[in-house]
C-alpha cells in the first residue's frame, strides 16, 4: 500500500481555485518532485498536507490514517516532517537544542518531572543528549553543538534544518526548495545528501523545487502543476520533453 495517497484534493480560497482535483501516490522509499511555475499551487498542496489549511474537498491518507483536519503538530507526530523554504531555525537556541526541541513530542517525561527534575528527567535528558549529538555528527555539525544556531553559516543552517526535521522521526520528509540560494556545486552536494537521507533513514521524500538541475538529477518521478492542475507527470525524461511543461514555464511559441 502506498505511504501517502492524496485523492481529489481541491482547495478554494473564496472564489479562487488554488488546487483542483489533485491526486498523488507516494510509495515507500520514493523520491518524488513537485514542480510548477510560481502560483501553480505547490505551496498550497504543501500547506494542506502539513495541516495549515483544511482542504475544501478530497482525502489525504498517510500510513493508513486520514490526516485531513488534523493539526500541524499531530501530522508531524504521525510521521510527516518538513523543512522551510526560508530557514526557520530556533535561532536564539543552540544547535543541539534545535534537535532536542524536535524530539519533544516523544520525550519520556512529563510536566511534573520537568518541575522537579526527577530521576526520569535526568535519564531522559541524558539519552536525548546522546541521541542529538549522534544525529549532529551525521550532518558534521557536532563541533557547533553549543553555538547559537542563528550564528551558523548558511549551508550549515540548511543542514541543521534537515537534521532537525529528522529528529521528529518522520516516514515522509518534505523539502521545500532546499536548493534555494545554492550555487551549482552546493546543489550537487545537496542531491547526494537527498539520496543518502533516503537510504540512511529509510525515508520517502517529496521535493518541491525550482532548480531544474536538482529536480531532474534526484527525483525518480516528477509531477508538474500549473494553475492548480496537474499538467504532466512521469519520469524526468518524459517531463523534460513534454510540450505542456515547456509552455507552462516559457509560454506559447517558445
Amino acid at each position, binding site marked *: 500500500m502506498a505511504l501517502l495517497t492524496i485523492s481529489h484534493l481541491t482547495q478554494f480560497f473564496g472564489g479562487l481555485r488554488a488546487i483542483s482535483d489533485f491526486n498523488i501516490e507516494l510509495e515507500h522509499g520514493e523520491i518524488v518532485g513537485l514542480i510548477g511555475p510560481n502560483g501553480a499551487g505547490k505551496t498550497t498542496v504543501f500547506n494542506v498536507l502539513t495541516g495549515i489549511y483544511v482542504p475544501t474537498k478530497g482525502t489525504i491518507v498517510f500510513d493508513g490514517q486520514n490526516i485531513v483536519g488534523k493539526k500541524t503538530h499531530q501530522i*508531524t507526530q504521525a510521521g510527516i516532517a518538513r523543512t522551510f523554504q526560508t530557514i526557520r531555525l*530556533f535561532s536564539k537556541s543552540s544547535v543541539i537544542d534545535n534537535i532536542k526541541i524536535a524530539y519533544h513530542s516523544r520525550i519520556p517525561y512529563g510536566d511534573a518531572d520537568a518541575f522537579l527534575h526527577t530521576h526520569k528527567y535526568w535519564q531522559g535528558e541524558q539519552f536525548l543528549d546522546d541521541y542529538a549529538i549522534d544525529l549532529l555528527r551525521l550532518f558534521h555539525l557536532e563541533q557547533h553543538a553549543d553555538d547559537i544556531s542563528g550564528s551558523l553559516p548558511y549551508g550549515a543552517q540548511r543542514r541543521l534544518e534537515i537534521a532537525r*526535521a529528522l529528529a521528529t522521526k518522520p516516514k515522509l520528509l518534505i523539502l521545500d526548495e532546499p536548493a534555494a540560494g545554492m550555487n551549482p556545486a552546493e546543489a550537487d552536494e545537496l542531491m547526494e545528501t537527498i539520496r543518502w537521507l533516503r537510504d540512511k533513514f529509510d525515508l520517502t521524500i517529496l521535493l518541491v523545487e525550482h532548480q531544474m538541475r536538482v529536480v531532474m538529477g534526484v527525483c525518480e518521478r516528477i509531477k508538474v502543476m500549473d494553475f492548480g492542475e496537474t499538467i504532466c507527470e512521469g519520469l524526468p525524461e518524459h517531463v523534460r520533453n513534454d510540450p505542456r511543461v515547456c509552455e507552462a514555464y516559457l509560454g506559447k511559441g517558445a
Partner: protein
Amino acid sequence: MTFIRTHRTVATVAAFVLVYVIIKTFSILPLAEGKPLINGYYLQLIALIGINIVMTVSLGMVNGFTGQFSIGHAGFMAVGAYTSAMITTVWLHVSVANPWVGYPVFILAILVGGLMAAGAGYLVGAPSLRLKGDYLAIVTLCANELIRTVIRVTEVLNGPRGLGGIPKFTNLEVIFVFTIVSVVLMRNYVFSSHGRSMKAIRDSEIAAEAMGINTTRQKVFVFAFSAFFAGVSGGVFAHLLQYIHPDNFSFVKSLEYLIYLYVGGSESISGAIIGPAIFTLLPELMRGLKDWRMVIYPLILILTMIFRTEGIMGLKEFSFILIPQRKRKEANT
C-alpha cells in the same frame, strides 16, 4: 556527574542559608544603639523583594521565555491574595498566636490561592493565547482590570473598602522558603524539554508546531502555571501587608513587574531576579533625594534600557542558576 550535580545544589542552598543567617543575625543583634541594624522596615523591604522576584520570574516565563506579551500579571496576584486572605481571615479565623494551626492553614490557603489564580490564568489564556503581540497585551490588560473591578464590586470581599485584619504569617523564613522553592521550580521547568519548547515557540511558532510541539497546549500551560506563582505571591503579599485593596492590583502594578523584567533581562532567570532586587531597593535608597527621587529613578531606567537593551543580564545566567552539564561522550562512529 551525580556528585557535581548534588554538589552544586548543596552549594546553592548553602549560599542562600548563609544570606538568611546573616540577615537574621543582624535583625536580632542590638548593634545600633541597642536596636538591631536590620529593623522592621528593612525586613519588610526584603520580603517585598522576595515577592517581587517570584512575580517577575513567573512573568518572565510568559513574556521572556515563551515570547507572549502579557501585561495583566497583577490580576492573578489579586486572585491569589484575596482567596488566601478570605480563607485565613474571614472563613477560618486563624491567627499567628496559634502557629501550629495557623501555618498549615496559611500554607494551604496560599496554595489554594495559587490554584484559583491558575484557573483564572487558564480562563484568560485558553481563548486569548491565539492572539499575538499587541492584541494579547490588550486582552490581558483588560483581564487585569476586569478582575480588579469585580473585586471592587463584590460585597463578600469587602469591595472598595479593602480587606483588613489579615494575620501576619509572612516572616523572613516564609519569604526565603517561598522565594527559593518558586524560583527553583521555574528554573527547572525552563531547563527541560518543555522549557526548550517554550523558547522554540518564542523563536518561531510555525516551526515549533511543524516540529510536533502542541504549541497551544504549551502556551496555555505556561500561562496557567505563571498565574499560579503570581497567585501564591499574592497570598504571601496579603499576609505581609495585612491589608489588601483592589487598587493594589491595578495594571500599574503589572507595569511595575514588566519594568523589573525588561530591565533585568527578560530572557534570563537571573535577570528576573536581579531586576526586582535592584529596582525595589533603589527608590528606598534614594529617599534622601526627596522630590528628585522620581526624576532620577526613571532616568536610571531609561539609561539602563539604552545601554543594555536586552536587560542587565541579557541572555546570561548566574552560575548557580544553570544546570550543570555532563561531559559529552566521545564519537562512536
